[in-house]
């Protein structure tokens, strides 16, 4: 067994409560800063070009590990808000199998968490690219 799943992650339910309680962009910002602290940082060896997600202005690395058909994810970013978003995204999909992940409407799930402004096609963030990578073969 690898070192997945990450034990210190808040539950999807807790994350949902925290983010849905935000009444403004500023509150969401602060909530993401707090969430970001739950993401274990990757080592420099893990931050390879292969693990890097294209399309993000901040650097984002994502590592997928399959264990008995279930998917777990390790990730990091040099931007704090992105680390908060990664915690939210990973909490939704960690431990699921690929088919389940592919069937999930992650865009809507994130929109429900007040994160829709992170889902624009703006080049400043690549959350859409992350979602694509998470469900990939």
């Amino acid at each position, binding site marked *: 067994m690898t070192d997945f799943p990450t034990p210190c992650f808040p539950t999807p339910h807790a994350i949902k409560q925290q983010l849905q309680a935000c009444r403004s962009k*500023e509150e969401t*910002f602060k909530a993401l800063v707090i969430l970001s602290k739950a993401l274990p940082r990757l080592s420099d060896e893990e931050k390879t070009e292969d693990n890097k997600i294209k399309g993000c202005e901040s650097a984002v690395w994502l590592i997928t590990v399959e264990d008995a058909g279930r998917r777990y994810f390790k990730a990091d970013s*040099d931007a*704090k808000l992105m680390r908060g978003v990664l915690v939210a995204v990973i909490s939704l999909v960690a431990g699921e199998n690929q088919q389940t992940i592919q069937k999930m409407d992650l865009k809507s799930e994130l929109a429900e968490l007040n994160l829709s402004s992170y889902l624009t096609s703006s080049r*400043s963030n690549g959350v859409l690219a992350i979602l694509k990578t998470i469900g990939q073969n």
Partner: protein
Amino acid sequence: MAFNSYSLRNQFPILQQTAYGYPLAYLDNAATTQKPLFVLDAIQDYYRSFNANVHRGAHFLSDRATNRFEQARERVAQFIHAPENSHVIWSKGATEAINMVAYGLEHLLQQDDEILITSLEHHANLVPWQQLAFRTGARLRVLPLTSNGEWESEYQKYFTDRTRIFAATQVSNAIGVSTPLKTMIQEAKKYSAFTLVDGAQAVAHYPVDVEDIDCDFYVFSGHKMYGPTGIGVLYGKSQALEILIPYQTGGEMVRHVAYQATEFNILPYRLEAGTPHIEGAIGLAAACEFLIQQDRPALLAWEQKLANHVYTRLIKEGGIELYSPEKNTTLVSLSVPNIHTIDLNAYLDSKGVAVRAGSHCAHPLMAQLGVSGTLRASFACYNTLEEADQFCDVLLEAIEILGDD
């Protein structure tokens, strides 16, 4: 005439709104400026009153449109002190204008010729030259300007007998410094190089006199000087424009066409294939008119005062790296160690402050500065001291929230 940014601000309807409940502080003017009513009205008036294709139909509306379109060219020529209207070629913007020159001069370049640019260039004044070098076997060389834009006598060695093209920005978009333009142009002339100046960041702030600069080509975009997007200008001296091979061909730019050969039209039409961006030209001329009507030295002094105010406040705080100069600039470019500029940007946005974070399309310059990106607050004539303070206050809050581990 006393300049008052508050009354000027009323002429910009878009600024009269809040963002997420906060007063909108638009400080991303180096990316694009907002448009005054004078420009908006000119564009609407075109469609309401005299929309027609130019230079062809002999009818009431076409005559009016053609007259106004050519008056727009004249207005822009006056604005940059071009001696002839035909020296003003319409383009989509500065980027297209530079590409028109890079493709247009290709036939003159040979293996081992040199194209010289500075280290402060936007990608728009870098990539077209690099690609031209790849196509022709010429070499791209980079004159390393210091981040305070100073001319050092050792720079002379970058100009050689092989220097065929010298292209430089007038003002850096990323760090706001002005380059020693006239010294560089004079140096380039000693070697008979073609000279091109990227004025995209200059036209909104500084008076431009292309004859005084004495460059062969001068380019800029309308949208960075209170005009519409999709329109810009390639100014050139007659001989310089004549030597360009048109990089686009088609209608409008021809005098006679047969299956065997085509006779091209005279300047400026020779370089303007297809139906032009008529509304854009009219809007850009209105933007020139808007600026001409202002007390421009007072506008510039105000914009510089705002940038200096922010600089002075932030330098006192410590822990903030500033890349723009203290004075004589209209923007502030900074970074904070261990905090991503995207995070700073996001917090500023959440409190209504619009700035820009990132590399500002100048990757090599960022490498020279040793950062992946900077946060840039860039000012225009309608910005206020309150907005400058709003930026500083919110930035300091952001640093406190983000810097806690």
